[in-house]
């Protein structure tokens, strides 16, 4: 699919549309949509930036590639002077005092934020139904969930309401909704993009990443946001992904692709998804590429390891939400009671379930047998990835074991929702770059750390043979 960024850029410089009209059209489309993707629409910020772009074009000044391009950001990012709720009741009136580094970089390049996007509350969910703002509806069928937690972001891109959106991925929150709405979504290498200014869910796997309709847009946006940031000590230097990757040949004798056999030992996998994946492997083999079957951890171990660590970290990260310095405060009988009532009334059932679970695993009697063991398993999982990527260049896998659920189904069974993350959480624990491609029910392409270029290059090849 053609680059949306390029399309907007060309339309603006050809003066086919003014930037102000373009932004007004996008905002109107979001406002009138029944998909419920927007928590807050950024009329004032967007219009002011659009008028500045129009002024440059009128004066025949050169504009940058991202200048005037409308984008959305998941409502967990801070943007100075604008609401940032995390889709929670707790922070429904909270105004950001500063701007997240990744968002600032995009705005410095001229991209225009138009909407704070609906998502699962604090990233706690896989359907975008766990939100104070009401559930997000899938872009392709409104009876289905949008996926989550970055559901509003994926739907906005799929519907063309934004040229691209910035999601957040802790255990699959970019990749899974991207698959459910048939767009691309990249979880970059952990540390490639700064997390400063994103509401923390599980800090050791939280990643900022783009959702877009084309691989070229994923490349442009990833490059624009990457780099070391003094405000996030986990960030690393990275090499920009060159445009030439889309011209290079993929297949040669040394290239080897892997897939995890254990993903298909899961008895709950949908047969259609399994057959589509096997069909794709067969097509890849016919192109002369070596495909190797790899052993891996049982998917239940991956899911449990991820959730133990994520719940422990979210219990710690959300301890700051107590209605003292910001957020809704409900008065009780003294400070401890104020805090407990404010948290009990303002968190959703799912968020409370995760905080309580995290508190349990960090407490006496649980910490060694569960939390420390999960940390040990994390190290084993990372070691296994290191070993696998010495044997293969890339790993491919489905995104989810089952098709997109209908609205309301997942809320009834939290365990089923956790298990639906079986194919995404492992790569989060590994900190590896993983891209969802919108082929069939979605395909993930994963490389070793810092190898986003190879991921995009192979995705481009895969697109040509599907």
């Amino acid at each position, binding site marked *: 699919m053609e680059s949306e960024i390029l399309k907007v850029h060309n339309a603006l410089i050809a003066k086919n549309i003014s930037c102000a009209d373009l932004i007004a059209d996008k905002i109107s489309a979001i406002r009138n949509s029944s998909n419920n993707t927007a928590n807050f629409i950024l009329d004032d910020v967007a219009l002011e930036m659009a008028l500045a772009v129009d002024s440059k074009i009128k004066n025949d000044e050169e504009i940058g590639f991202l200048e005037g391009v409308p984008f959305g950001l998941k409502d967990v990012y801070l943007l100075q002077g604008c609401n940032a709720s995390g889709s929670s009741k707790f922070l429904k009136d909270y105004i950001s005092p500063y701007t997240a580094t990744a968002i600032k970089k995009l705005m410095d390049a001229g991209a225009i934020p138009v909407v704070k996007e609906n998502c699962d509350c604090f990233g706690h969910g896989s359907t975008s139904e766990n939100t104070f703002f009401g559930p997000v509806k899938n872009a392709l069928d409104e009876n289905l969930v949008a996926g989550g937690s970055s559901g509003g972001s994926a739907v906005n891109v799929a519907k063309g309401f934004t040229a691209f959106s910035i999601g957040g991925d802790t255990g699959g929150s970019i990749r899974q909704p991207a698959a459910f709405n048939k767009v691309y979504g990249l979880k970059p290498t952990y540390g490639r993009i700064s997390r400063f200014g994103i509401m923390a869910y599980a800090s050791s796997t939280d990643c900022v990443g783009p959702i877009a309709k084309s691989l070229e847009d994923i490349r442009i946006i990833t490059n624009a946001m990457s780099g070391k940031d003094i405000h996030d000590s986990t960030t690393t230097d990275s090499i920009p992904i060159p445009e030439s990757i889309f011209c290079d040949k993929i297949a040669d004798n040394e290239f080897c692709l892997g897939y995890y056999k254990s993903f298909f030992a899961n008895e709950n996998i949908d047969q259609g998804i399994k057959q589509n994946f096997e069909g794709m492997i067969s097509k890849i083999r016919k192109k002369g590429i070596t495909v190797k079957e790899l052993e891996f951890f049982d998917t239940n171990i991956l899911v449990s390891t991820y959730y133990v660590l994520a719940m422990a970290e979210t219990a710690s990260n959300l301890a700051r939400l107590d209605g003292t310095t910001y957020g809704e405060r409900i008065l009780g009988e*003294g400070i401890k009671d104020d805090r407990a009532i404010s948290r009990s009334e303002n968190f959703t059932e799912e968020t409370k379930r995760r905080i309580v679970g995290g508190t349990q695993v960090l407490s006496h009697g649980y910490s060694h047998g*569960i939390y420390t063991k999960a940390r040990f398993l994390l190290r084993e999982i990372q070691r296994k990835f290191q070993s696998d990527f010495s044997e293969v260049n890339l790993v491919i896998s489905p995104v989810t074991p089952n098709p997109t659920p209908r609205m309301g189904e997942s809320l009834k069974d939290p365990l089923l929702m956790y298990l639906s993350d079986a194919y995404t959480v492992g790569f989060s624990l590994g900190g590896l770059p993983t891209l969802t491609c919108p082929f069939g029910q979605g395909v993930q392409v994963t490389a070793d750390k810092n190898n986003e270029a190879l991921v995009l290059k192979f995705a481009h090849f895969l697109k040509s043979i599907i």
Partner: protein
Amino acid sequence: MSKIMPLEVLASIKNAKPSKSVEELFDVIKTAFPDFSKDIPEEINEVNIITVENLRNDVVAESTNKEKNLIRNNFPREKNGFLVVSKVIEG
């Protein structure tokens, strides 16, 4: 005072109770790797290491007036520009 604090107090959530769904996830970890040592293995600390030279200097950074005003505007209760809190020292 009892050394064992209930979950409700630790999580600061009224009537906090363990979830059956979450307990099932814990059970998977409990039964995985039965040889797991009682001693905490050193290698668990090898994950996500940040070297000292990569840490930023511990200095106070002055916020802009705009930031300060936004922070004040987020106070749940405010009086004369100060944050109002419940009495901290309790009987």
